[in-house]
């Protein structure tokens, strides 16, 4: 073959390839209407709802769509017109109905008789019982189930093929919401049991990689760390049929690229854009900005009350009076959130939690409090934040350093890797730090139970307050609403006064979508619930 003939040959080959490519592109674009392309910064680390080695947020989002729970949250529209889950409205899912006994000590679920798993086998009460047993046994979910009074396998009794009873020592309002979350998802027990080994009585090894649910979506392909492709389960009975036939969820670690993709219209919806980018996009107004303050989350600065000098309540109040709240709010999250500072002083009027703390920047008050604490010239301290939360930690720490410097407190800033900081928090070794957290249950008593007492990491300021502990215990099963409200108000007062944690704000969870995408709603795990989305 001479050179010229080779060139013409390869040219026609390339031409052929091009026509081939464009030809099939049309076929592809036809199906694109039925396909949703979603982006996020993280990948699911497991498909097991009760995984023993931790379940990250993307995994919770995936599990939400590929499995069902007995019950599910309803939907409420927020003041800006964006929907969010409604904690106080529990709706049927796998269970078509439920009934409390007259004393509230047992709860009987009627499971849908037409519900099936992805392998078309029916969902039975036996499946549900096995999964509930699993939830109260696995270390990762045990504590969370206990928060809803679900503690022992003996509590779950199979009454028939599609009837199951739960027994309690007393009625707990948290039981039903607790069963709505991804960690309470039901998988195919018949299938999972085949993979039980002596070392692995709950088939964790198998469930980790094998979706065994019956949810609205099936997993078509899963590349860990990279991409999940879902296809709709057309046999789904637990809710209205989803609009998208296929969903591609891709991990794009770089925020700038997520923004570029959504701006150029190559993606339909994206999570995890920094607040600054969201502000830019909002100004450009070519895309939908779906923002909901993280209903169950909050960001805070904590002082460990068992370390010097933060064991002195006056010092804690002084710091809370000196933080440059408004500057931090602007510099760290570009005003994209709901402030939890500068709240009304005096007795709290509502039981809402998280709530705005009655602290504002008032350096004179801070100086006075320092003097009362016999520390008029300030002290030296180290402020720690998590490397993975540097987006807020970095600007916030510098502003805190500057502001506290004005009242004589010399702050050294330290940035720690997540793992290191997590372990140090476990033993309450860090005196002064920034973190963010969220609770699964929106009940105020629950928040106090988790964040303001106990020997665990989640006692954020390691507070030991006898009155608070007693009030929490008394309020736990209080059925009289007036008494309950009074106790919640008292807990808030103690939290304001003792101030082991200084609340900063609830950040907006911003989801950016093309204008033709509708049906988004904020879920407690902050991932996209593909089931309700549609193209308009």
């Amino acid at each position, binding site marked *: 073959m001479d050179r010229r003939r080779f060139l013409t040959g390869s040219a026609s080959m390339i031409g052929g390839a091009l026509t081939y*490519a464009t030809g099939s592109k049309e076929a592809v674009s036809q199906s694109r209407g039925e396909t949703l392309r979603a982006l996020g910064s993280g990948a699911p680390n497991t498909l097991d709802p009760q995984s023993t080695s931790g379940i990250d947020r993307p995994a919770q989002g995936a599990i939400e769509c590929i499995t069902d729970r007995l019950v599910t949250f309803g939907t409420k529209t927020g003041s800006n017109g964006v929907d969010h889950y409604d904690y106080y409205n529990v709706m049927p899912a796998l269970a078509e109905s439920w009934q409390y006994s007259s004393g509230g000590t047992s709860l009987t679920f009627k499971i849908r008789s037409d519900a099936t798993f992805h392998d078309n086998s029916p969902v039975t009460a036996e499946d549900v019982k096995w999964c509930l047993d699993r939830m109260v046994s696995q270390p990762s979910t045990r504590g969370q189930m206990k928060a809803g009074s679900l503690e022992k396998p003996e509590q779950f009794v199979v009454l028939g093929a599609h009837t199951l009873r739960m027994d309690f020592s007393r009625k707990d309002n948290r039981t039903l919401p607790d069963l709505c979350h991804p960690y309470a998802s039901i998988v195919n027990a018949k299938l999972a049991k085949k993979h039980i080994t002596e070392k692995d009585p709950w088939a964790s090894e198998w469930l980790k990689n094998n979706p065994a649910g019956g949810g609205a979506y099936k997993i078509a392909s899963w590349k860990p760390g990279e991409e999940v492709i879902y296809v709709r389960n057309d046999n789904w009975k637990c809710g209205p049929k989803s609009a998208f036939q296929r969903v591609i969820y891709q991990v794009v670690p770089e925020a700038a690229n997520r923004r570029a993709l959504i701006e150029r219209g190559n993606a339909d919806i994206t999570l995890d854009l920094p607040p600054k980018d969201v502000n830019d996009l909002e100004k450009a107004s070519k895309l939908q900005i779906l923002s909901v303050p993280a209903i169950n989350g909050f960001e805070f600065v904590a002082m460990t009350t068992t370390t010097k000098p933060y064991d002195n309540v006056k010092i804690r109040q002084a710091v809370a009076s000196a933080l440059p709240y408004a500057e931090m709010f602007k510099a760290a999250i570009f005003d994209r959130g709901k402030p939890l500072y500068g709240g009304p002083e005096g007795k709290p009027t509502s039981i809402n939690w998280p709530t705005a703390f009655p602290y504002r920047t008032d350096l004179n008050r801070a100086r006075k409090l320092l003097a009362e604490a016999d520390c008029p010239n300030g002290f030296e301290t180290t402020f720690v934040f998590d490397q993975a939360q540097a987006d807020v930690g970095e600007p916030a720490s510098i502003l805190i350093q500057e502001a506290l410097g004005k009242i004589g407190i010399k702050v050294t800033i330290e940035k720690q890797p997540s793992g290191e900081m997590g372990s140090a928090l*476990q033993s309450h070794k860090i005196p002064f730090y920034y973190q963010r957290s969220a609770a*699964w249950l929106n009940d105020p008593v629950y928040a106090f139970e988790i964040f303001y007492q106990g020997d665990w990491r989640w006692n954020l300021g390691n507070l030991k307050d006898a009155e608070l502990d007693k009030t929490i215990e008394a309020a736990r099963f209080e059925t009289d609403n007036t008494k309950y409200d009074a106790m919640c108000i008292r807990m808030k007062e103690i939290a304001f006064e003792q101030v082991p944690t200084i609340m900063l704000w609830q950040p907006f969870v911003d989801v950016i979508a093309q204008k033709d995408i509708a049906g988004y709603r904020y879920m407690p795990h902050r991932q996209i619930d593909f089931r309700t989305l549609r193209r308009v």
Partner: protein
Amino acid sequence: MKPSRGWFAAKRIVSAVPLVFGVVAATFLLTRLLPGDPAAFFTNTPGAGAAEIAEVRHNLGLDRSLPEQFVIYLVNLAHGDLGQSLISGQSVAADLMERLPASLELTVIAFVLACAVGLPLGIFAALRPGSIIDHTCRIVSTAGVSTPVFVSGLLLIYVFYYLLGWAPDPVGRLDPYLNAPPHLTGLLIVDGLLAGDLNSTLSSVKQLILPSATMALFALAPLARMMRGSMIAVLGSEFIRTARALGLPRRKIIMTYALRNALLPVITTLGMVFSYMLGANVLVEKVFAWPGIGAYALNALISLDYAPVQGFILLMACLYVVLNLMVDLIYSFIDPRVGLAE
């Protein structure tokens, strides 16, 4: 007697065993010395207390003594088991095997690109020192080395994807709406061609252009500089002067005598650059959402996930051994004076 190349290679591989063992032991110790408790990190849902953490620690085998853990690790290693990754939920061996082809494909293409541009650039710069081409070489290599990879990567994306729209979206190895070709080698271009799937081959080539250009830009500099320096030194040596004096054709002097001699230090640099590119392209992988081994190991390191870090370092150590061996073998081909015996 001159030992054969095969014998030399075998000897080198055997002598690498203590080295690899040393790497295994050192990474094991290093990961354990890192501050932070993986059990606490992975049991990070509110509601998990000390008992739950202790149970997870036991499940992970982290409640055993260090020597015990090390022996278990070695025994597993001997069975080809690199452990389990906690962040991906997969076995490390499977993860690395899945991701190594992605890194290799990117690195090889970027490497070829860097050589194709860098070596001629270095040669021409050496032939005409002080000329425009020499200045170009200097500017390109200075800019390549001094621009961080994530800056050049994002810049290329901004211009070629965001502004001009010529490049496909900078996410992953394939158009997400296309199906990947059947998995044979893991190299998408090769797999696509083998399956006769022109569509996916084209798409994977397009996806490769920006990330490999970014990497090549970075790798270009040492190659061009090394080539230029080495070539200038050789061109000034006496045998070249003799060759010129004897009136040998310029082409023969440059290509046969000068270049062959000048290539020796460049080969060493090539080996180093290649292995460096393979392991250190974390940033390129992050910017282009490329599912390679570098980003994988970095994510694991941040999340206190020991097994992938150890697996990654072990893999890199083995690759370095092989690459060094290859460099030495190539050396012996280019320069017969280089003995293979120790």
